């Protein structure tokens, strides 16, 4: 039995997971249209490489990665690009972003796939490039491009952690994936292990998912000889506590190590991937399939909660329709109830906007007033420190709240605001019902904006100083030029004066003596006895 460690705090919200695990994953039917955002990942927006009117095949590149942290975007099915324009996307801001709208032709016709026969014959760099071009990003929610997480640093990676904790209530997409497709997860994990050259692979799964744990264990045993390295793979049941699936907390539980503040897990020799990401890596390399679909849990106020394998870009209302939302539905939440966000354009009455699901969409919770009653009016903080007791980052949430509320951003930073993982445990237990996380998000984004402004100001200062120097230099050069010109003019003036009679005589003299010398030289060649001196 492996020694497990624990992290401070945590909460036990009602899990609400059993509703959606009764039925197997169902393939979602082809939707009427697909809206594929070109910015589905952390980093830069992909550059569109198709135009409205183009016919595309399933898996064809439609968005080229643009910049270091970026990822590719593909056509989820074959069809015609109807438009490339700004559309409302799943983002807490409710702002539109660049999307490609695809009308499926129903044929679902693939491009020619190029599977990697044996990934062990390839270098890590080559595989990274393949993953980048396959649009593989972390499927746990942050959608960080996976190829970047696979770049080798100076630090040797000892442990690769596969995150199957899935601690948020309602969400069961990873659970179902582990139950049904454990073998492919294990193979993907082995690819990741190979790329990182890690010594061991630990699958952290919360102990409320015994089926998933058993399935993974079976898959590891079954692929034992094929993997050669199977002894390095181990499934670890971890205690069920929210936010046990947060990467830093999971690393702590499995290895006892704390990722130092402001550092990456790789700095302590650990890397962490979601199990669904491992599955996608396997599909991308072994089958050559780019990331076109994912498993999404549809739960909450629906007749039949279930997991669907749906194409990226599927309008969320079409997806929810498969589970039949109940009549008192008042909105959709993307993600879990602890960290998710209400989708724009869907709360309140009026026609639902067709916000599409993206690579990061792990769960759609259909909400109703009964399931998620609006919070009661917030009361002042009474410093009861329930938030301190549950904070997994050992912060003092009540102090951070105070600083954020009074916009004392400097002090918020010294009290480690940026170590907050926004898990929401503090708000969950707050007896005063203060939207604490909301204050932290506000303070963080204000601080980031200020730092950005500061950078711009520093840049402007440098450029202005350079500008001043340039003006100065130009002035100086102009002055110098002017001075030189004047000198030249003076010289010319001197030259323009008429010669005196004496000077003219001298010049004439010089000319005649030169003539004379030339003659002498010529005669010298013939006689060689004459005097050659010239005075």
């Amino acid at each position: 039995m492996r020694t497990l460690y624990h992290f401070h705090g945590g909460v036990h919200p009602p899990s609400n997971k059993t509703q959606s695990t009764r039925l197997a994953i169902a393939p979602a039917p082809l939707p009427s249209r697909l809206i594929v955002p070109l910015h589905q990942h952390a980093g830069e927006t992909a550059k569109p490489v198709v135009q409205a009117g183009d016919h595309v095949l399933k898996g064809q590149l439609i968005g080229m990665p643009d910049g270091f942290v970026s990822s590719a975007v593909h056509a989820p099915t074959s069809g015609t690009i109807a438009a490339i324009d700004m559309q409302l996307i799943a983002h807490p801001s409710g702002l539109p972003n660049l999307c490609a709208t695809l009308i499926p032709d129903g044929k679902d016709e693939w491009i020619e796939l190029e599977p990697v026969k044996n990934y062990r014959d390839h270098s890590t760099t080559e595989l990274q490039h393949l993953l980048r071009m396959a649009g593989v990003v972390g499927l746990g929610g942050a959608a960080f491009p996976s190829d970047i997480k696979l770049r080798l640093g100076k630090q040797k990676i000892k442990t690769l952690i596969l995150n199957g904790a899935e601690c948020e209530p309602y969400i069961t997409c990873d659970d179902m994936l582990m139950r049904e497709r454990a073998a492919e997860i294990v193979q993907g994990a082995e690819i990741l292990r190979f790329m990182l050259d890690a010594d061991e692979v630990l699958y952290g799964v919360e102990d409320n998912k015994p089926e998933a744990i058993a399935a993974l264990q079976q898959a590891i045993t079954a692929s034992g000889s094929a993997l050669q390295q199977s002894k390095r793979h181990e499934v670890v049941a971890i205690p069920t506590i929210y936010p046990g699936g947060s990467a830093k907390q999971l690393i702590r539980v499995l290895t006892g190590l704390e990722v130092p503040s402001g550092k990456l897990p790789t700095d302590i020799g650990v890397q962490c991937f979601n199990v669904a990401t491992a599955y996608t890596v396997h599909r991308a390399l072994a089958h050559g399939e780019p990331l076109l679909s994912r498993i999404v849990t549809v739960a909450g106020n629906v007749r039949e909660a279930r997991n669907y394998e749906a194409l990226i870009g599927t309008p969320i209302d079409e997806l929810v329709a498969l589970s039949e939302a109940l009549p008192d539905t008042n909105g959709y939440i993307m993600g879990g109830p602890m960290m998710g966000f209400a989708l724009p354009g869907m709360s309140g009455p009026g026609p639902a906007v067709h916000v599409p699901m993206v690579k990061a969409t792990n769960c759609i919770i259909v909400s109703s007033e009964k399931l998620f009653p609006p919070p009661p009016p917030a009361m002042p903080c009474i410093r009861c420190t329930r938030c301190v007791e549950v904070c997994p980052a050992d912060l003092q949430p009540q102090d951070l709240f105070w600083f954020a509320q009074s916009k004392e951003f400097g002090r918020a930073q010294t009290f480690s605001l940026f170590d907050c993982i926004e898990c929401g445990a503090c708000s969950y237990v707050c007896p005063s019902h203060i939207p604490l996380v909301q204050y932290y998000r506000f303070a963080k984004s204000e601080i980031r904006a200020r730092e950005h402004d500061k950078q711009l100001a520093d840049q402007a200062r440098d450029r202005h100083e350079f500008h001043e120097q340039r003006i100065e230099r130009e002035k100086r050069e102009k002055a110098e030029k002017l001075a030189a010109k004047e000198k030249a003019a003076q010289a010319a003036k001197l030259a323009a004066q008429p010669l005196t009679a004496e000077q003219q005589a001298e010049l004439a003299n010089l000319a005649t003596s030169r003539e004379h010398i030339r003659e002498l030289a010529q005669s010298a060649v013939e006689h060689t006895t004459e005097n050659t001196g010239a005075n």
Partner: protein
Amino acid sequence: MFFSPFISKSEGVAAIMLKVLLALLPGISLYVWYFGPAILVSIALASITALATEAAMLKLRKRPIAPFLKDNSALLTAWLLALSIPPLAPWWMVVVGTAFAIAIAKHLYGGLGSNMFNPAMVGYAVLIISFPMQMTHWLAPQGLVLAELSFAQQLQYIFSGVLPNGLTLDAITMATPLDTLKTHLHLDESVQQILNMPIYGQIGGHGSEMVAWGFLFGGLYLLASRIISWHIPFTYLGTLFVIAWIFHLADPTHYVAPLFHWFSGAAILGAFFILTDPVSSPTTNKGRLIYAAGAALLTYLIRTFGGFPDGVAFATLLMNICVPLIVLYTQPKVFGKKDGGKKDDQP
């Protein structure tokens, strides 16, 4: 539009305060049993005053009135104050003390959650400094005095200050056990002699020790329901015990046994209900230890060497002053910020 988390498990401020009020009931019941129902009159008076003052202050400060009146925090202040002053204190004293506590100590500092000092203790301090005489007229436990007042007579005294014919105040009231101890120690009597007086019971004062048991019971309920953490009550009582024990060992004729300190005066009430007030106590666990230990030391010093009969209120107020500093210097280590990855706390 609201934001994550969309779920909450919290019962709310009002429910927490209500539980604290409930936890006071066993102590109050025993109080009534041993000292008669006069205390209920003070509690009722204080409650009404507190709610009225709270409403008036909220109105003046242009805050919504209903949610704050319903949060039970003013009631808690009222009850704690009423329990700290003699039940036979004239009605205007209760009113003045409570109004001061709510208006000055609570609302002038910003209302719920912003008061630096425990309002009930501020009210108590004001009363004991302004009306020291009246604050010593404690009801004697039943069966210990020459004459006993009926409830109607008590009411009459509280509201009009008139005693039935032929009775003097001395006949119906007496000093508290702590006060008596202090007075008689000054008269060069030994602790053993003094404790033989009828006012003393098994451990502390006759009757009042039972009330303390009641508060202890309520306090343990608060601990069990995780409304308060163990840090403050345990450290407070522990430190008080240790200090009293050291003095008692050194000189048992002049320094009373530690358990006497626990079960007389407001030690138990203070440990579980007053010092644990979240608003005016430290937010860090380490800070709570320092705060409670400091309060215990001050309590003992004031009780033993100071001029006031009990030290809990002043100890609380003095430690309240130190809270911001204590909190600043006891900040816990943040995840990923100490010797990162020290494998020390295995479950």
